């Protein structure tokens, strides 16, 4: 036999074998189907999320058991993993059309999944079910329809180190930008490697652009969008917010290492007492208190532009929920969504997650026994949750693009206007 003929035989055998294996895999995969078996009229809902591992052991399962008791015939199967692997799982499910019936969503993914037709229009489902959406704190919409409902929210207020502020001669946490800059300069002037503010701008995890930069714009009632389209240029609110960040940088009050700093580094700098003020998730209160029990710190609203008296937007991250378009049990899935959003369950979930409720009527327990959380809850109720990145296409990439332009500006390579113009161009091409 010639070499060529041999190779041909070999390839044919290999391909035949491979096809056999692939077919077997498809066969066994096909049986599982979406939503599990439905024998005897019973429905099994698959619920993929990253929440269960972040909650106390068994707490989330208990809530699901309660739902099953209230809705005989529906069983909930929890598919739990860490945030990052849930994201990959949901992404793969969206591509393959095998998404779980109910999925935990991050606002940053919603636009892509909605456009892909992977998640269902909740506005229609809520209308079918007669669900009153006025009790929802917020909804994430694409083209006017809701695709995600934030179940609980983690807000990002301003944290201030009481001792450092006192040493710098500041009695109360700053509430305007000028007060903030003065306080930051005062703290930096204390020397000994202490800085007024910390700004994580890592391009690996670019959420600092959302939480630590755009938060200044939202806190003064500004917006980076106009009718759902990017509006970074010709927008005085955005310009003044970003200019303020650049001014703080030029004043030398920002802790060094910004360009590769991530959220956890920011928290560490604050916890160690090297930084006087930061904007951070309320979810980190316990971590900070455990890591440095002696640290005295307060929580307040993010400072607004001088003279601003309107409602302040406060950045937040959510555990959002959505329903898969390919689910065969959308009505049952909607029941689970409604259960989680109901006043009582939502309050309970918020309490165990140390987060703020997605239902306007719910009040979590911890607000009553913890002063810091009580203050934060007041800030939350006084303002409005603002995170304009949720619902945008490739939200993380948008943050990275603006982050890169900001790095160039802070590095002295271009002006704030140039950065915003360049980012606006990049954003427009993604919309």
């Amino acid at each position: 036999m010639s070499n060529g003929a041999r190779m041909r035989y070999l390839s044919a055998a290999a391909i035949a074998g491979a096809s056999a294996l692939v077919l077997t895999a498809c066969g066994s995969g096909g049986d599982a189907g979406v939503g599990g078996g439905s024998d005897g009229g019973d429905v099994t809902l698959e619920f993929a999320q990253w929440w269960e591992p972040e909650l106390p052991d068994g707490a989330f399962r208990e809530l699901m058991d309660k739902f099953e008791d209230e809705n005989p015939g529906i069983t909930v199967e929890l598919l739990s993993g860490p945030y990052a692997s849930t994201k990959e799982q949901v992404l793969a499910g969206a591509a393959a059309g095998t998404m779980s019936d109910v999925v935990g969503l991050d606002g940053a993914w919603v636009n892509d999944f909605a456009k892909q037709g992977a998640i269902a229009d909740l506005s229609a489902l809520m209308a079918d079910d007669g669900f009153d959406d006025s009790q929802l704190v917020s909804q994430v919409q694409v083209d006017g329809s809701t695709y995600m409902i934030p179940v609980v929210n983690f807000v990002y207020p301003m944290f201030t180190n009481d001792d450092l502020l006192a040493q710098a001669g500041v009695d109360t946490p700053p509430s305007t930008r000028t007060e903030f800059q003065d306080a930051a300069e005062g703290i930096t002037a204390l020397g000994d490697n202490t800085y007024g503010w910390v700004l994580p701008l890592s391009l690996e995890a670019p959420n600092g652009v959302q939480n630590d930069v755009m938060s200044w714009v939202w806190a003064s009632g500004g917006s980076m969008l106009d009718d759902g389209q990017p509006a970074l240029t010709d927008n005085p609110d955005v310009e003044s917010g970003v200019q303020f960040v650049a001014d703080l940088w030029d004043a030398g009050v920002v802790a060094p290492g910004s360009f590769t700093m991530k959220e956890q580094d920011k928290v560490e700098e604050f916890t160690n007492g090297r930084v006087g003020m930061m904007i951070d998730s309320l979810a980190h209160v316990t971590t900070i208190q455990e890591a440095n029990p002696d640290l005295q710190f307060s929580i307040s609203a993010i400072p607004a532009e001088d003279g601003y008296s309107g409602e302040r937007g406060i950045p937040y991250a959510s555990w959002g929920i959505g329903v898969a378009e390919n689910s065969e049990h959308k009505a049952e899935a909607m029941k689970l969504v409604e259960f989680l959003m109901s006043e009582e369950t939502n309050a309970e979930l918020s309490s165990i997650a140390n987060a703020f409720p997605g239902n306007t009527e719910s009040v979590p327990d911890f607000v009553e026994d913890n002063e810091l959380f009580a203050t934060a809850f007041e800030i939350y109720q006084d303002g409005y949750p603002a995170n304009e990145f949720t619902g945008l296409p490739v939200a993380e990439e948008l943050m990275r693009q603006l982050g890169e332009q900001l790095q160039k500006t802070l590095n002295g390579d271009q002006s704030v206007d140039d950065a915003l113009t360049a980012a606006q161009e990049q954003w427009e091409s993604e919309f």
Partner: protein
Amino acid sequence: MFTSHVERPVVAPTAGGSPGPDRAAPAEQPPARSGWERLKRRLTPYGFLTPTGVLMAILMLTPIVMVIWYSLLDGVITTKNSAFVGFANYAEVLTDPVFFTAVRNTLVFTVSSVVAHFVIGLGFAMLLNTPLLSHRTKAFFRVIYVLPWLFTVAIIAVLWRLLLNPNGVVNYLLGSLGLTGGQTEWLADPSTALASVTFINIWSGYPFFMISLLAGLQGIPKDLYEAARVDGATPLQQFRNVTVPQLRPIIISMALLDFIWTTQQFALIWMTTGGGPINATEMLSTFTYKLAFSRYEFSVASASAVVVLLLSMVLAFFYVRHQKARD
């Protein structure tokens, strides 16, 4: 990656296997063998090969073919009906200025790493091979020198992020010696970031060279050195005319392998700088990753991956040719 292991023995059994029985066939065997039996005999070796063939097809061939196919489609994975767009994705990658920054950074990173790995690896290997130290001392230092290689990339990244932090140990030491201002942002300053990640990569990778070269050094016959000494060669001449030529095959193999691996370094870059600040440490690997998992442009990412594959294949070609020449 797949480029480094070409399983040559796969074809070998067929070459030796099938003619054997034919040649051995004795004269008294029934002359007319049925066609089916002959076919069975011919196919038997392939039957034995099938498991390997299937595995290779599933694990290597399928993903590669899929990526190449994806690179020719538009909006793959994220849209239901992707259209064939020919080489449009390649055009997009090759006209992106960041792609060329990534190529340049990858080259600087890789060439510096490989050269430094070789120099440091050879230096330490020769120290460990010296007859001047006792076995125990050498064993002790062998453990010390090989340590960086034992850490996983995640640990290395965290460790060096802490060490190189503006408030970290490195700055403290350099600052107290008066060599720097003591607040250098090694990884966060665009002018020092690439050098810093290259340094970390050098630190974590030299032991691999060192161990291989040490094995090579120990294998050089002592009589070559004796002969050189008899001829009056100085230590430097011995190094140039005995040590280096004897190590050459190992050096070339290691350098080529290291070159291939370092061009594909992703985790270390991603976990220390994420390709930033600005584009200072953007590599081909981080560039491709961002396209796929941050912008969800899997088609363009596939095109970029195919470009990287082609570049790796050039290197792999030299490696295989060098290995063949040795055989």
